[in-house]
């Protein structure tokens, strides 16, 4: 049907690879720096934001291509995207710190387009949580050349691992002759936790010289490399925090100069139960998608006011959709749900842009709408994060990577 072909036209628009000079003309500019504009212009050139000025652009005489929308924000940043293909995690060992998830990514996968449609321009891609220490995650743009290397914002950005039952799920003791390695992997929460401690101590006491992952663990323990630990439930959150405090306090680590690890709790659904613990230990968290009926994975319970609770307790937090392609689960909607839970708009905006950017150490390039930063921009049809508002265009590094197509008015975005 030509219906599709029309939609295709819209897609093909998103194919031009050259960064263009844009003038973006909106009713609202939400910079994420607290300084917002009514009726403003955002100018883009050479893939960077070149100016943010008030004005309606009528008198504007630049040769730029003009895009009009209701609002513009910085491109969204999702610090919790799961790479859901099983070939992304090396299960022949349960601790594989040195393996790079970047090597497993498919630049042609459809997930990138889905993220672009949702306004997400930067993600932290992490392996499936089948390993205790899964490896090195990568921060990359969702739109760009069809090569992971060319899209990477920060290689080896964080060390990714998991607490809880997921790394031990499916493993089994061997009765008689073991048939595969699943029989020598941890089968309990405590086994998982022990693997962590074991890896840390071996590194501190230098018992793993041969281990290709040692260098990575050293960097992590010295705090040069943030450690993202998945921990859905209170007990796992506590375990993670206590593990860190143990590393900070034990002399072995001090002696080796490896007592300053930086932890980030990922998928902390039950963070609302012990905000003080997180506040006290200054542990930032990444929240999982909001469940629609209370409980979510690991049978944890996530209250809709969790974001507000953390905000009030002064715990830095980011929201995440875990990379869902579903319309109602997209990151923008997660921000909306957080607002439904009592969070203010500016805080919601920060939780999907500047905060995750900071947690990933890429705040110098993305996360806010400021002159000199990457031209990663999202154009909205209305007030961002409202279900009645959609992403009408996504720009990555100055390239229009997604142009929404409107069933009713044709092009969703005016030029």
């Amino acid at each position, binding site marked *: 049907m*030509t219906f599709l072909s029309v939609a295709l036209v819209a897609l093909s628009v998103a194919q031009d690879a050259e960064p263009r000079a844009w003038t973006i003309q909106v009713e609202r500019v939400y910079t994420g720096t607290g300084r917002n504009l009514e009726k403003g212009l955002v100018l883009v050139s050479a893939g960077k934001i070149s100016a943010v000025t008030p004005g309606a652009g009528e008198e504007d005489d630049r040769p730029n291509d003009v895009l009009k929308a209701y609002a513009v924000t910085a491109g969204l940043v999702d610090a919790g995207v799961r790479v859901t293909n099983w070939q992304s995690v090396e299960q022949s060992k349960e601790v594989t710190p040195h393996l790079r998830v970047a090597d497993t990514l498919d630049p042609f996968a459809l997930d990138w387009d889905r993220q672009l449609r949702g306004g997400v321009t930067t993600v932290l891609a992490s392996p499936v949580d089948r390993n205790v220490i899964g490896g090195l995650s990568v921060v990359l743009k969702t739109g760009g050349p069809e090569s992971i290397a060319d899209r990477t914002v920060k290689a080896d950005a964080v060390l990714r691992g998991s607490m809880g039952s997921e790394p031990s799920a499916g493993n089994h003791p061997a009765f008689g002759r073991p048939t595969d390695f699943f029989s020598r992997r941890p089968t309990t929460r405590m086994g998982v936790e022990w693997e962590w401690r074991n890896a840390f101590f071996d590194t501190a006491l230098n018992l793993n010289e041969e281990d290709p992952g040692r260098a990575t663990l050293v960097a992590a323990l010295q705090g040069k490399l943030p450690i993202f630990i998945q921990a859905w439930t209170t007990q796992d959150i506590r375990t993670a925090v206590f593990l860190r405090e143990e590393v900070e306090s034990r002399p072995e680590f001090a002696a080796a100069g490896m007592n300053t690890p930086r932890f980030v709790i990922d998928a902390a659904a039950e963070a609302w139960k012990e905000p003080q613990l997180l506040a006290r230990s200054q542990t930032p968290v990444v929240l999982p998608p909001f469940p629609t009926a209370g409980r979510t994975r690991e049978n944890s319970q996530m209250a809709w006011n969790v974001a507000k609770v953390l905000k009030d307790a002064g715990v830095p937090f980011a929201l995440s959709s875990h990379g869902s392609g579903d319309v109602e689960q997209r990151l923008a909607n997660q921000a909306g749900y957080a607002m439904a839970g009592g969070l203010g708009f500016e805080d919601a905006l920060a939780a999907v842009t500047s905060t995750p950017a900071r947690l990933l150490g890429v705040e110098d390039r993305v996360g806010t709408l400021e002159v000199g930063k990457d031209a990663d921009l999202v154009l909205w049809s209305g007030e961002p994060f409202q279900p009645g508002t959609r992403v009408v265009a996504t720009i990555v590094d100055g390239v229009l990577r997604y142009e929404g197509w409107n069933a009713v008015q044709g092009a969703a975005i005016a030029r």
Partner: protein
Amino acid sequence: MHTNVGWLALVLAAGSAGAQEAAMPARETILVRAEHVIVRPGHVLDGAQVLVRDGRIVAVGTDLEAPEGARVIEGRWVCAGFIDPWSALGVGGDSIGEANATAATRTVDGLDPFNLDHLRREALRAGVTSARVQLGPQARIGGLGAVVRLAPGLAHEEFVVSDASNLWMTAGLSQPTGGQFIQASEGVQVQGPERTPDPFDRAEAVDRIVSLLQAGKNYLIAQNEHRHELEDWTKKIAEKDAELDKEFKKAKKDREKAQKDAEEKGKKFEEKKFKDEKKPQAPRFDEDNEVLARAIDGRIPLLVGAERAAEIRALLAGTKELGRLRLVIAGGSEAGSKAAELAERRIPVLVWPMPLGRVRPDELDGHDLSLAGRLASAGVQILLGSGGRDPAATRDLPLLAGLAIAHGLSRDDALEAVTIGAARALDVADRIGSIEAGKDADLIVLDGPPLETTTNVRFTISSGRVVVTPEN
């Protein structure tokens, strides 16, 4: 929110969504001039023309002039559009996977004109204009097949050439798998038999087919009998009525007499009620037997997928007495041994000339590209099809035919197999399959002889619409 809406209305360029149907080329009056017009295989007119109007071929000759305003198409070779008698293009993937159909299940209920247009266009560009599609090609019973046109966006009547072209069954064993060579295209889930059938399964499958046919036969007989009984009954009733009117007095006397006799004999008098004679009961309606009966009666052909010699032998034996049954064997990898009987009983074989490799040891021997040639030279009528599983395969029917030719089938036999031969076997020869006045205008214009891989289709005309031109 209100402001947003106002803004939307204000700012959004009101370019229409343009959700119109793909523009289907209109029917035209067309005069096709060609160096060679293949009316039907073996009958070629040189320097001839074909006149098309209102979707029909109105004239074929060597001295036709273009009427006023007619579109003129020049070409070297012209022949009827190819028919793929064993295709999956046009029927929904769910139907292709169907495993529980009955004789009365209609493929036409599973047609999908909404998807795979890109494959239709490719097939048209290769010269294939129509195809027989079949629900449940892997199932024991696939029900009624249908012949459809491949041009996208046709209205139902034009899309469907025949909504009951045949009855389909398989004799237990699925087609040979082709290794990497067959790629089932997206959205098509083909479910063959859950396990590789053993010889007993095959025998059982053939028995099932034969007994089904028997049931259909009995049903047919019962129906005919019932028709006669009914006639007799109505006649009898009519007579009695007449008699009663005519001889009312006599009847009255008789009655009184009978009454008296009864009283004398001290018996209870019983009135004779001839009208109570039961009206003969019609045999219970059974939709499946209805269809089987039609097949037994030769009103629709019965296509049976059978590969192994044992199945074919059993099938031929089991259907001997069914004189009017029009059997077609599909697959027939090992039909060679029965070629003589097939030829003698005029049972066509629908061959799948697929270059299959050695996937299972027995397959290479079973499936051989020379099959078509061998059967043809033994006098068996040959049809060629693309296998009925992968919608994309229909495009390559001409190439498969080419392989059959390379391995011994004559070009004319091959061409017949994919045009008029297929049309005859599927009871659509009155509409498609050859270039004759009165038939639907499904024809192709080529830059070389048909079925040569290096020949290109320049124009494809489907029911009077030019659906392929060198430009598009």
